[in-house]
């Protein structure tokens, strides 16, 4: 009456998401596998940031790592080997409203999917990319991967790997438009959590290489890092990965590194021993591809019809 709304009540549906809201099927990784730690951390971050489960998508390829979407309570896309990134980019391209996570591995991302890795870095679409790097093909039972150390014996190289391992950090840093590169370890839950959270907070393509334990096929690859923390170099900085003092004490080697310094980032990344953990490089100013690709995604039918008719006009006789 008199143009006033009769009902002034505001319908606020408070939704609070608990850890269980992000849980899917029961994880079937081997006991002692580092993947469990990553899954737990991802679910905690979702909870802590209160991400709506129906607006999040976990995308993966094939491999042990790529089982992750099945264990999430979000939408998931468990696709084909090496191709998680094109799918994830396609999802984001016209749905910038969605929160996109990618779970991939050293074989999935750095070998069969290597072409997509390079170009996904260039597209710099806003997504969190977790590379579960255990230096071996686990699901297919112990074949040499690109990050298998030289001399490591596998079923495809019983005399030991004959190629020097690929360095995913220097490779990623070398790609134009790179905007976030970090490395962490699955056996330090605090650093793992803070690193992945920083990656998720970053707007752009954030790649986290996770040194991940495979107790069955490549235990030796990371065992020495667990036994002797001095084989790690913790990169710290006020703009880097923030961890508590208690956690800091676990790392005997520490180095202040400004993540905006590409040249230094490359130097640390290049060193395999001690192995750098922390934020190597971040640039928040790189444009995101979805800013271009999503243009017009919400255009109405009337406008589209007008656009189509205009296109017809230009070929009319």
């Amino acid at each position, binding site marked *: 009456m008199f143009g006033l709304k009769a009902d002034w009540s505001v319908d606020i549906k408070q939704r609070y998401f608990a850890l269980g809201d992000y849980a899917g099927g029961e994880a079937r990784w081997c006991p002692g596998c580092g993947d469990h730690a990553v899954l737990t951390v991802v679910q905690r971050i979702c909870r802590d940031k209160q991400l709506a489960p129906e607006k999040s998508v976990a995308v993966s390829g094939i491999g042990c790592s790529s089982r992750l979407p099945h264990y999430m309570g979000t*939408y998931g896309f468990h696709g084909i080997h090496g191709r998680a990134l094109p799918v994830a980019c396609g999802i984001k391209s016209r749905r910038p409203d969605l929160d996109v996570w990618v779970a991939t591995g050293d074989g999935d991302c750095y070998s069969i999917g290597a072409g*997509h890795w390079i170009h996904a870095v260039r597209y710099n679409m806003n997504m969190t990319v977790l590379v579960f790097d255990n230096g071996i093909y686990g699901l297919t039972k112990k074949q040499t991967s690109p990050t298998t150390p030289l001399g490591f014996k596998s079923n495809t190289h019983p005399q030991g790997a004959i190629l020097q391992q690929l360095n995913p950090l220097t490779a990623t840093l070398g790609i134009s438009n790179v905007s976030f590169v970090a490395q962490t370890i699955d056996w330090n839950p605090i650093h793992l959590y803070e690193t992945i959270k920083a990656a998720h907070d970053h707007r752009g393509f954030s790649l986290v290489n996770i040194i991940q334990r495979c107790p069955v096929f490549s235990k030796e690859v990371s065992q020495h890092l667990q036994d002797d923390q001095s084989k790690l170099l913790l990169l710290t900085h006020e703009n880097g990965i923030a961890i508590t003092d208690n956690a800091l004490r676990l790392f005997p080697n520490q180095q202040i590194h400004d993540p905006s310094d590409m040249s230094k980032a490359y130097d640390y990344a290049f060193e395999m021993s001690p192995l750098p953990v922390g934020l190597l490089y971040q640039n928040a100013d790189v444009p995101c591809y979805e800013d271009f690709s999503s243009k017009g995604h919400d255009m109405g*039918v009337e406008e589209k019809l007008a656009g189509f008719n205009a296109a017809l006009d230009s070929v009319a006789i």
Partner: protein
Amino acid sequence: MSKPSEASQPVEKDNATSSRTPERIDENIVEIVSDSGEGAQKAGQTFGTISAKMGNGVWTVEIIPAEIQPPSRSPAGASGIRVRLGSSHITNMGDAADLVVALNEQVLYSRIASYAYKRGTVVLLENKWRTDPDPKIREQYETSVAEFRKNGLIVREVPMEEECLKLTPRPRLGKNMFVLGMLCRIYSRDIDKGNNEIEITFGRKGKKVVELNQQLFKAGYDFAENNLDYCYEVPPWQRKSTERLIVTNGNQAMGLGVMASGMDLVAMYPITPATSASHYLADVYDKVGGFIHQAEDEIAAVGFAIGSSYAGKTACTITSGPGLALKTEFVALAVMAEIPLVICVVQRGGPSTGLPTKVEQGDLLASLYGEPGDSPKVVIAAATIEECLHFVIMARKLAEAFRTPVILLTDANLATGVQPYPRPEAKAEWMAAPIDQSAWGKDVPPFDWDEETGLSPRPVVGQLDGQYVLTGLAHTKWSKVAYDRESNQTGCNMRSRKLAALYSTLKPPKIHGGEEGDLLVVGWGSTLGAIEEAVDKVRVEGHKVSSVHLRFLSPLEPGLKEIFTRFKKIFTVEINYSDEEDAPLITPGNRRYSQLAILLRAQTLVDVDCWSNVYGQPMQPGLIYDEINRRINLMKGEN
């Protein structure tokens, strides 16, 4: 073959005047051939547009050299255009040309090798080479002209360069408009329409350029009027005068279809002959809010489109045979996980890199059966340029309604052929609906298969309570990975049943010609016009020959077996490989049939024969006509 009569008129200069009465003809095939960069295609397209505006049926097709910058004056460098115009609907490029304008003699050799000409074809040949400073060129020219004449071409030497030099110091750039002027005079085109088209074409480059080109056009027109004794009238086609027309090639039509379908993403990787569809879209797609994604490779292109479709924005990828091969694994994922997806395949010659710029219908079986395991999907083929537009709209609807990838096959012939056709009236229902973000029923599985049809609604990311994990692994209706015997069998049943459900909605194909008879020709794709033209011609001669043309290849259209029972013999006409019956070592036991024939034989158990070739050329009505006659005579002998 079309009759050579008009072309075999006397050719030497007469004292013709403008009062000469044009000879009425039903149709003519004209070519302009040159080195690339001489504007032959522009002249031909303009000539085609003028003709279409005057009410003629028109089909133009570009003659494309295989190399980017071939040497000048070389057969391999032949670049140009063919324009077939007539007093009826023109559906294909026809057989041998009636009149050719050539800017040098060497390029003619490649066309002669393609059987593009006949005895009596008139060649209006640039004569400047006769006086070229290079004695080698002079000799080449003289030898060739003599050879052409000996072989029955009617060569008329025309001083095009000399005439153009009167108006411009750079005749190479303007000669095409002189040629256009000659053609417009020869075919009694409206001179105002010509000037108008030049204005449209060059308007952006300024008044001076327009005027110069109009002067060159007029010079060509006057030259033909005063010096050439060819003058024809091609009466307009009696069609509804209110009908509005558009002119495009098949790839542009496909791009328009993408826009009309409301798809807002195309992911592609450059591949001939598909890429020009994306070039076109890149120009206009933003008008409908769409985006062209040029991916890092073919695999990423389809993966990107699948990602977009999974998120509710059904997308399209446009490719050709080698690209389709690379996309195979993703296509299988889309089948397995029931992701709507449109895959446009502009076929070229194969296998391997094959004939990138030339036509073949070689990807039919790869489209149907390219993936490992059982991978049922919808496969449709456009038969006309107009269908390239409308079938994209249909493909998106089918993809979403049946929750499946849809492969739309076209080919290089449709992609580069240009034709006027009715302007579509855009409809809102052609467009994809906005994505559904309402809550999903908690107790509704993501694959809520209808037992009978295999159909199920699809949850879209963002829908509350719709969360599921799409997987390429065998799965239950809850999309849970399942390796048990029943789950895999059920999943395969459900995916296959969707094709049966689609089949039940289709109508039997229309028969062109009599409902029964001696011989039935079956075709698919771009051969429609050539087949029907050939069939019409033999029917006029009293033979009981008909044809059917299939648009749906998976599922096949219903009623085929029944139709086949009404004809004594059936054979397919296709542009893909088959063994000739009498080739060495070939027996009925090992003969390899063309692709549609294999499908039809398997599906109908009828002894469907085939006739096909892989010349890399559009199917010519004359060749089909000859083959039909050969078969009719064989049948007479058998009786």
